[in-house]
């Protein structure tokens, strides 16, 4: 009875294991959820922590995982279970120690996608269909629900491998379905209570039992591999590691512990963390580090936070990072991060080409090549001159060879620069003309770019209309308010500070009724502008019709969508204040220009991306490779830390 009265719970790794009620589903589901936990792939090996505030015996356990084998790398089942369960997805949180990490970013995206998927799922299907559709695993169901099997050792089975979820989450709650039968999970999955052999023990009872004192109480906090039986206290089995409260000893695969830390009991907060970089584990008590407890953890073993308790009524409450941890884990992570940063800073440049013998020259080549490649002709020239000046100053002798000259005189670069400049100015016609003249095949071969340019032209026309309307309006207003003439200029430039009154724009062709007959300079000006506006509006409409006709039969969905969005602009009197305003931003010119530039480069048989872009790509790819098993790459967020 001693052993069997021991209950253990594993923490599921996400909030994705909501309590399932329907037995059939929960069977399948439990299995899936279970299996999903091991797949913490591409993981941070940061220590992840779970912290707990104690009800009676409190603990915090922290759990980190990394390095699951690639074959585990998927969690379809997990997703499915979710969709099928049709439970609400619990709120997403990022533990403080992971904030700003690439991993957290990925998971956040995944979470959003999950919510979206769930929405879609709910709207289209009955919940059950989904959960069953995938699981080849539903055959070997985890046996758990409801039975009080006392002595049974529950062996957790692995689910077959799915390939779906690329990012594995951190632990968020105890796994409802992966626990000893008599352990109750409460409070949103964070509180675990040993209910004893009968459900009739209620909370009050547990309080009293706990408050009885230390004797006989036995609580273990730690982590364990996926195959560890849940009927024995953590630490006694292979791949099970724990810190016990009754004697302060640590255990791994043994029933005789090693002295480690103080005992712990009611209201103590115990933290547990794994450092996946060093493959060590540590515990903390009430915010104090107790030191390394275990070394040489298996890098590829998926570890789950685990708690175990022996007496009915004992209750533990876990904090997986929902609340600040008692221990300053952030500091620890910062230190790790700083160590890696320092390592990177100390990295010596290895020359890979004769033309770039050292870091500075390598960088100069990267920049020159980028500038030439992307057609920043004048910048490239200025840069080359400055580099040459620098090299001259540096040279000991006058006859030193000036390192290099990037071929800026390249005609193509000049042409491409013209085209880019035209687009960035919003003069799409000029860009089209140049492109047609210099690179006739490009527009023909890249219809989508041609389409985007045409759409952009329409947007530019709308912009012009808007601009003119604004001017008319402000002229108008200033005249009517008869305020001092300076007002005119100031308001004319302010796009937001006016009330739309004119309704003749965009196709409603009746002349402005409000245009009255007082004649002063403003009015002449205004008349002029009104006329121009009308003309422009008419042109815009005509152009829009032409554009619509040209692509009317295009079957592609994105084309249809783009047309729809673009044309919608016309519906607004002042599109700048509409929800479509982002379309009007001049920023929108940049991607079009870049895309055209790349297409031209490809047509010339050149690479579409510059060396520095490839450098960034390689770096990101390498870093995420290094982050895969929680290695040092996990501490790096290339974009955040290096590109901004």
């Amino acid at each position, binding site marked *: 009875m001693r052993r069997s009265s021991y209950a253990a719970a594993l923490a599921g790794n996400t909030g994705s294991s909501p309590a399932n009620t329907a037995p059939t589903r929960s069977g399948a589901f439990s299995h899936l959820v279970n299996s999903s936990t091991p797949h913490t792939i591409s993981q941070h090996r940061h220590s992840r922590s779970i912290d707990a505030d104690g009800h009676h015996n409190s603990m915090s356990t922290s759990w980190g995982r990394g390095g699951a084998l690639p074959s585990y790398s998927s969690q379809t089942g997990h997703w499915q279970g979710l969709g099928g369960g049709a439970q609400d997805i619990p709120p997403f949180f990022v533990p403080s120690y992971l904030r700003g990490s690439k991993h957290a970013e990925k998971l956040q995206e995944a979470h959003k996608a999950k919510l979206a998927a769930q929405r879609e799922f709910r709207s289209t299907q009955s919940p059950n269909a989904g959960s069953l559709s995938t699981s080849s695993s539903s055959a070997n169901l985890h046996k758990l629900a409801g039975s009080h099997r006392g002595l049974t050792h529950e062996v957790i089975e692995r689910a077959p491998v799915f390939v779906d979820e690329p990012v594995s989450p951190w632990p968020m709650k105890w796994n409802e379905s992966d626990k000893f039968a008599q352990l109750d999970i409460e409070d949103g999955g964070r509180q675990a209570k040993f209910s004893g052999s009968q459900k009739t023990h209620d909370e009050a009872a547990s309080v009293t039992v706990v408050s009885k004192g230390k004797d006989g109480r036995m609580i273990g906090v730690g982590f364990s591999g996926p195959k560890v039986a849940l009927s024995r206290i953590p630490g006694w089995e292979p791949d099970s590691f724990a810190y016990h409260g009754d004697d302060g000893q640590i255990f791994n695969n043994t029933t005789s512990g090693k002295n480690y830390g103080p005992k712990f009991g009611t209201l103590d907060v115990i933290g547990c963390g794994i450092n996946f970089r060093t493959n060590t584990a540590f515990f903390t008590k009430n915010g104090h580090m107790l030191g390394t407890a275990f070394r040489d953890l298996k890098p590829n073993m998926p570890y789950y936070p685990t708690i175990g308790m022996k007496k009915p009524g004992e209750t533990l409450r876990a904090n997986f990072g929902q609340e600040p941890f008692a221990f300053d884990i952030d500091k620890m992570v910062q230190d790790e991060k700083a160590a890696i940063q320092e390592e*990177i800073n100390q*990295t010596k*440049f290895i020359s*890979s*080409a004769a*033309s*770039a013998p*050292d*870091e*500075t020259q*390598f*960088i100069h*080549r*990267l*920049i020159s090549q980028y*500038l030439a490649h992307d057609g*920043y*002709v*004048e*910048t490239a*020239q*200025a*840069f080359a001159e*400055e580099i040459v000046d*620098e090299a001259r100053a*540096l*040279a*000991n002798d006058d006859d030193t060879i000036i390192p290099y000259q990037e071929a800026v005189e390249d005609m193509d670069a000049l042409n491409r*620069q013209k085209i880019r400049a035209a687009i960035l100015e919003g003069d799409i016609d000029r860009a089209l003309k140049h492109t047609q003249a210099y690179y006739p095949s490009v527009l023909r071969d890249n219809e989508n770019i041609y389409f985007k340019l045409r759409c952009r032209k329409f947007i530019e026309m709308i912009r012009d209309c808007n601009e003119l309307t604004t001017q008319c309006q402000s002229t108008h207003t200033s005249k009517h308010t008869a305020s001092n003439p300076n007002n005119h200029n100031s308001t004319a430039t302010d796009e937001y500070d006016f009330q739309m009154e004119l309704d003749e724009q965009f196709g409603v062709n009746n002349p402005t009724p409000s245009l009255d007959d007082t004649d002063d300079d403003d009015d002449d000006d205004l008349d002029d502008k009104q006329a121009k506006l009308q003309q422009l509006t008419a042109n815009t409409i005509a152009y829009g019709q032409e554009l619509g006709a040209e692509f009317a039969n295009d079957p592609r969905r994105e084309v249809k969508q783009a047309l729809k969005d673009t044309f919608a602009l016309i519906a607004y009197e002042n599109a700048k204040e509409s929800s479509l305003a982002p379309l009007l931003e001049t920023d929108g010119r*940049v*991607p079009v220009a*870049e895309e055209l530039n790349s*297409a031209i480069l*490809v*047509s010339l*048989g*050149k*690479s*579409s991306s510059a060396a*520095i*872009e*490839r*450098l960034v*790509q*390689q*770096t*990101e*790819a*390498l*870093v*995420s*490779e*290094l982050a895969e098993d929680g*290695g*040092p790459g996990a501490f*790096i967020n*290339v974009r955040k830390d*290096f*590109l*901004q």
Partner: protein
Amino acid sequence: MSSSTVSVSAGTPTQHPFQRKIDDIKPSKTDINFVVMDYLVSEGYPRAAEKFAKEANIQLPLEEESIQSRVEIRQAIHAGDIDTAVTKINDLNPQILDTDAALHFALLRLQLIELIRSCTSSATSDVTPALSFASSQLAPRAATNPDFLKDLELTMTLLIFLPATGKLQKELAELLEPSLRRDVASRVNEAILMSMGARGEARMRSLVRLRQWAETKARESNRDIPPVMSLGLQDAEERPIGHNGESADVMVQ
């Protein structure tokens, strides 16, 4: 869809799987432009920075008032005119050299090297100016720090070996390399930037190092990555690190 691009990538026969991961990453032009601009400004290429702001339609960072002085200081150091450089640095902010003894020492040592160079190449080969500069300026500082002392001793041996035109041993030859001036100049530049509260080092440098570090780490841990990852700098025949002779350069020319 541009069928041309599709056929190009499909045409490369033995593409390493890692290459696809690389290709899947789409760096943003905005980020790249930022890194380039950051480099131009922090390493002191004002004309290029100005043109770039115009051509790429991005903002020139405003805080950069020091850029011109930093360029002048760099030029002075590169030209071996350390006196001018020190004066200009102190004009900008006297605290910089006061608080960074190592940097100040590096500048003085550079000055000593220039002195030795000019003394030994003069007609009389009179080394007195170099000796007196060393004993008045460097020796007192060297007494405070073993690293300084080592550097000073090494530098002084130049006096003995330099006239004897023969081959200098490597560490002595390095003292005469332009790269030493450049290194000191960039340390000064960083110190100035830091003193203004800016980030010391250009992002570009960290990025290049990160790339290097990541590749080294990945190879150390035997990740499945191609033996060569080309960047496609035209003439840069990037040399394989692994000894698999076949180039895995899958760059689309």
